[in-house]
């Protein structure tokens, strides 16, 4: 019972935040909800161990990110046609700038989207992004650089505007 209570509390505190973080990666709210829900299902199965983690949310985020990669790979390999049949992404009431960013993100490779979101939105340093995605630091830096460059080009802005730091 205590397990159930603590899992429910964890879920309630993290689920919306994680959906928000996964949305710019998936480009589709429904898909973001699905991967987050699946990640929480896996967390529920391991909750007796996960609850002792310092940040169980980081584990769920990492699983969700991996699921996005797997799904993207599967879709590419097996069901290109399905992509054409999928419903258009749901339009959300955000500013023109944010919606343009969402649109531009959808055109980037999923790995670039992931590093951009983890670094700029979740605010993880390069080393933790690398750990989360299971790739070397150099690859993360390279993906960040290419992602920023591609976004700036698609948005018609300079990289300095996107990342003043």
């Amino acid at each position: 019972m205590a397990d159930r209570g603590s899992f429910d509390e964890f879920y309630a505190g993290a689920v919306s935040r994680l959906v928000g973080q996964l949305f710019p990666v998936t480009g589709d709210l429904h898909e973001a909800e699905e991967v987050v829900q699946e990640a929480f299902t896996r967390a529920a199965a391991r909750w007796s161990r996960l609850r002792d983690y310092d940040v169980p949310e980081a584990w769920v985020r990492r699983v969700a990110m991996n699921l996005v990669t797997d799904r993207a790979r599967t879709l590419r390999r097996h069901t290109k046609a399905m992509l054409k049949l999928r419903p258009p992404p749901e339009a959300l009431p955000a500013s023109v700038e944010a919606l343009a960013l969402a649109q531009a993100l959808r055109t980037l490779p999923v790995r670039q989207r992931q590093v951009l979101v983890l670094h700029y939105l979740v605010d993880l340093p390069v080393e933790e992004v690398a750990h989360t995605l299971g790739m070397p630091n150099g690859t993360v830096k390279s993906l960040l650089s290419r992602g920023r460059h591609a976004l700036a080009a698609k948005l018609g802005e300079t990289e300095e505007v996107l990342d003043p730091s």
Partner: protein
Amino acid sequence: MSDLRERLQELADVAARHGRTPGPEVARRRAHLRRLRLLGGTAMLVVLAVVAGTVATDRPSDRPTPLTPTPTAGPTLTTVPTNSTVPLPRWIPSVTPLKVRAHPGPYPGPDPGGIVRDVTSLVRGCRDRSQVRLWARAQGKVWLIAAKPPPPGRQHLCWATALMNQGGGGALGTQSSELKPLRATFAGGGNRQLGVVSGMVTKRAVRLRVLFHKGPPLDLVPVDPGDQFPVNFWAGLFLETGPPRAEGQLPVPAVDRVLAFDQAGNQIAACRMRLGLDNSC
């Protein structure tokens, strides 16, 4: 001009506000079902091949006993077409269609194992409450389709299926959600087992015909789940019979094709049931 960080945060905030995930109990229940599946080892059914589905979950308890098939009125051919490049011919069961009426939901019960609760809670996304929209009973088992209507303007449906037996055990499956004029999923039980073909079809269709590789066709009438759904649901049940499947012999879905007809008798949709990429159902 806001920078990348601010714009990403805005997107995340909007998505977090508009996201609709089910409560933690759904994640817990799914995890519980998966644990049961792992503990159970072998599947409840010899084969549960939901061709267009994504997940199948079975329960270890209350394993059904093999069904006794009714005398077959269909073809008695039991040999399998061979392909010279495949060492072992694929197993294609003969089929005896069952005259079973599919009913609209809700399912009147009983539900000793909570399968109705489980199949409705498996339906994710979309809007409103998940409910059983179709049920059909045969051979001491019940086939259920639970669904939620799509949100306005979206071309997908959220639904799940379940096979429940008298003792309360069963098997669950979530289904692919893109709307199509005709969508079919197949669950085959193997030799001397109940098989099910079911799915969704455009509301223009008033009749469906299921063509099997071996066996007479099965004609079905769709069930209307209500105006909030852009499609109707349908289900057909049948018995699969021999010859016994040899070890290592891969099964082929008993269903070959599904056809949909309008009021005037014109064929308005069709799909071909296959394993893998050739499947158009």
